[in-house]
Each structure stands twice: as C-alpha cells, then as structure tokens.
C-alpha cells in the first residue's frame, strides 16, 4: 500500500483541514457554546428572580418590623400613661378618703367637746340647784322660821350671785 512521505504538501489536504476547522468552529459555537450560555443565562435569570423576590420579602418584613416596633413603643407609652393616670386617681381618692376621715374625726372630736361642755354646764346647773336647795334648807333650819319666801329667795340668789362672781 502506498504511503505519503513524512513531509508532503498537498493543497487539497490543506484546504480540507482548513474547512474542517471552520466547520468545527460553527459546530462548537452552535452546539456547545450557545446551549451552555443559554442555560447559564436562564439560570442567572432564575437566580436573579429569586434574589429579587427575597429582597422584596425582606423589605416587606423590615417594614412590618418597623411598624410593630413603633406600635410596641407606643404601647409602652400608653401603658405608662395608664399607670400614671391610675396612680394619680388613686392618690386623689386616697386624699379624699383621708380628708373625709379627718373631717369626720374632727366632727366627732367637736361633738365630744360640745357634749362635754354641755355635760359640764348641766352638772354646774345641777350643783347650783343643789346648793340653792341646800342653802335654802340650811337657812330654813338655821332661822327656823319663815319670813318671807319671796325675800329669802332673792337674798339667796344675791348671795349666790356673789359667790358665782367670786368663783
């Protein structure tokens, strides 16, 4: 069988090889690079979509978080106010109660004083009457006679008046 020389130049062989490379270039471009690049682009689009979605959700979540945080802080404030109000109310009420109690105690004390004074006056009156009775009896017994009821009473009254003035 015939063989070529080790170094043999043939224009047609060169041309065929030239065309082979060009054909392979189109094959590689069409059947390897384009599908792969298409796939990569698709996947990137997919990933970008997922990332975008995630970002949106994150944004929504952060907005929610801010909302809830503001609500929470206002809730704290409200609770503080409620407590403050309650404390103020309770203070007022306790003041009122204490004032009432004081008043009542004062009233009782005053009443007691008045009663005591009244009692004292009564007692004084009683003592005076008894003294009058006693003195009239004493004078009756001492004089043993009835001068004039009317005169006597006047005299004693005068006397007693003197005593009262002195005491």
């Amino acid at each position, binding site marked *: *069988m*015939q*063989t*070529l*020389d*080790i*170094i*043999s*130049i*043939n*224009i*047609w*062989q*060169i*041309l*065929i*090889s*030239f*065309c*082979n*490379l*060009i*054909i*392979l*270039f189109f*094959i*590689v*471009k069409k*059947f*390897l*690079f384009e*599908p*792969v*690049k298409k*796939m*990569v682009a*698709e*996947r990137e*689009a*997919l990933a970008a979509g997922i990332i975008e979605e995630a970002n949106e959700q994150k944004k929504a979540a952060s907005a929610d978080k801010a909302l809830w945080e503001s609500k929470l802080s206002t809730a704290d404030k409200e609770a503080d106010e409620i407590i403050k109000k309650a404390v103020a109310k309770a203070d007022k009420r306790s003041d009122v109660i204490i004032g009432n109690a004081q008043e009542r105690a004062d009233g009782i004390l005053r009443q007691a004083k008045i009663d005591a004074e009244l009692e004292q006056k009564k007692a004084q009156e009683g003592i005076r009457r008894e003294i009058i009775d006693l003195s009239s009896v004493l004078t009756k017994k001492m004089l043993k006679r009835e001068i004039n009821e009317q005169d006597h009473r006047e005299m004693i009254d005068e006397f007693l008046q003197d005593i009262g003035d002195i005491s």
Partner: protein
Amino acid sequence: MPYKKAGKEFKIVDATLILMMVAPLLVAILCKVLFIPQSEGIEITGAHVYFTLNMPVSTLPISESQVNSAAVLISIFFLCLFITHGIRAKVYTKRAVIAEWAVEKVEGLVNENMGTYFAGFAPFIGAILLLSAFSSLISLVGLFAPTSDLNVVAGWAILVFMLITYYKLKCGPWYYVKGFMEPIPLMLPMNILGEVATPVSMTLRHYGNILSGTVISVLLAAALQAASNAIFGNLPGILQNFPLFRIGIPAVLSIYFDLFSGCLQAFIFAMLTMLYVSTAFPMEEYMKRKQIKEKAN
C-alpha cells in the same frame, strides 16, 4: 436543584449519541485493520493512502489523516450534542457541570489573553483546542494522528494567519503596509519574513512535536525489542523471541508522548493563536479612527 430521573426516550437519545460518538472511530479503526497491511520492522512513513482522487491542480490522496480527521470531526460533533443534551437551568446534571466548566474555562482564557473585544473568539479557540487535542489523542486507540500530517496543521495555521492579516488590515491597507517598515524602512524584508514565519512556525511546531513523539515511540519499541532479543536470545524455545521489555515501558512513555504532548501542543497552538491575533489588532489606532469617523458623522 431538583433531580429528575431520566426518561426512557432521553436514555435512548443518549445512547445513540454515545454510539455516534464512538462509531466514526470504530470505522476508522476498521478501515485501518482491513486495508493497511501490518508493517514489519522499523518503518517511519507518512499516512497510508486509501485511494487517490483526481482533482484539478493536484491529486487528492484520501489518506489516513483525512479519514481520521473526519472521524474526529464527527466524534466531536456528537460529543457536543451529547454533553449539551438535556441541559436546562433547573436540572442539575454532571454533564451540564462539565460543559459549563469547559465553556467558562475557554471564555476565561480568551478574555484573559485577548481582552473582551475578542470575546467572540471563544468558540474558535474551543474548536482549535478540541480538534487539535482529539486529533493527537486519537493515536491512543492506535490510529494515525492527523496532527502528525503536515497538511492538516498547515490548514489550521493558514486560517490563523488569515485572521491575523484580517485584524492587521482593520486600519486600512496603508497602515498595514506601514507596519512592515517599523521601526525603520530597512527592516521591511525582515518583517515580511517574520510575517510569513508565523504560520510556518506554528505548523512545524505542532506537527513536529506530534510526529517526533510517534517516531520516538517506534524507535523505542524497536530498541526494546532488540534489547529483549539480546538478553533473552540464549533462552530455549518461544522465550527466545519474547519481547519482555516491550511490556509496560512504552505505555509509560506514551503518557508523555501521546497524552501530555498532544494536549500541550493543542494548548500551545490555541495560546499562540490568541496571542498573534490579539497583538495583530492595533486596538488604540482602530478606536481612534472610529472616534474620528463618528465625529465626522
């Protein structure tokens, strides 16, 4: 990512693609086995010629290198189809990862060496790498490597030379001619020689490296045979001719001469293509002219 079990049809298509990938190589091996007589002794020749076609200018011998390059071309075509078969964004498959890795590597290489202006060169560089590497690696299955035929590599180098010239002519023919007179007009013959030397050196480098690997393999096999004969020649019977040294040693050397050298030369050829084309293009001058043109409009 969701993993979907491959359907029956998918598997059938896959099997067909693999079959079509292997079939051209089998045909090439069959052709070799059927038509080429076994060589005896040390024989270093070019490709065997199956038949010769009469063409204008010169005859076209359909040799092993032609058949094998065609086989490689068809194999690569079905390899591309196989590796991109059924790749989708949502389905995660091994071959998709491999295809993506390869494409990204080639694109990265092109961007790194040529710049983003030449991003469209990625498939071309990929084609060079694939064709060159597979043409050299086909010798692993015992076929004649088309890259050890001068004409095959010359065709590629001429295509690269055309690209170089195309990019050099981008700023007009006068700028191209002026480029030969730099730095001084006296350098004109040297520059023309240098220009012509580019495809020649590319061709000879690739072809010479692959061919030398084949030649060394043949010489080594013969030498090892001779060594076996010399040492075991006095043994009786069949042991006398047993080529003990030819077991194993050529396989180890084949890793370098066939596998490594083939891939390396493919890479070097692609690298040189990128460098020559990108340096041939006077980017700054071209952009300047473009701006001036845009302003004029």
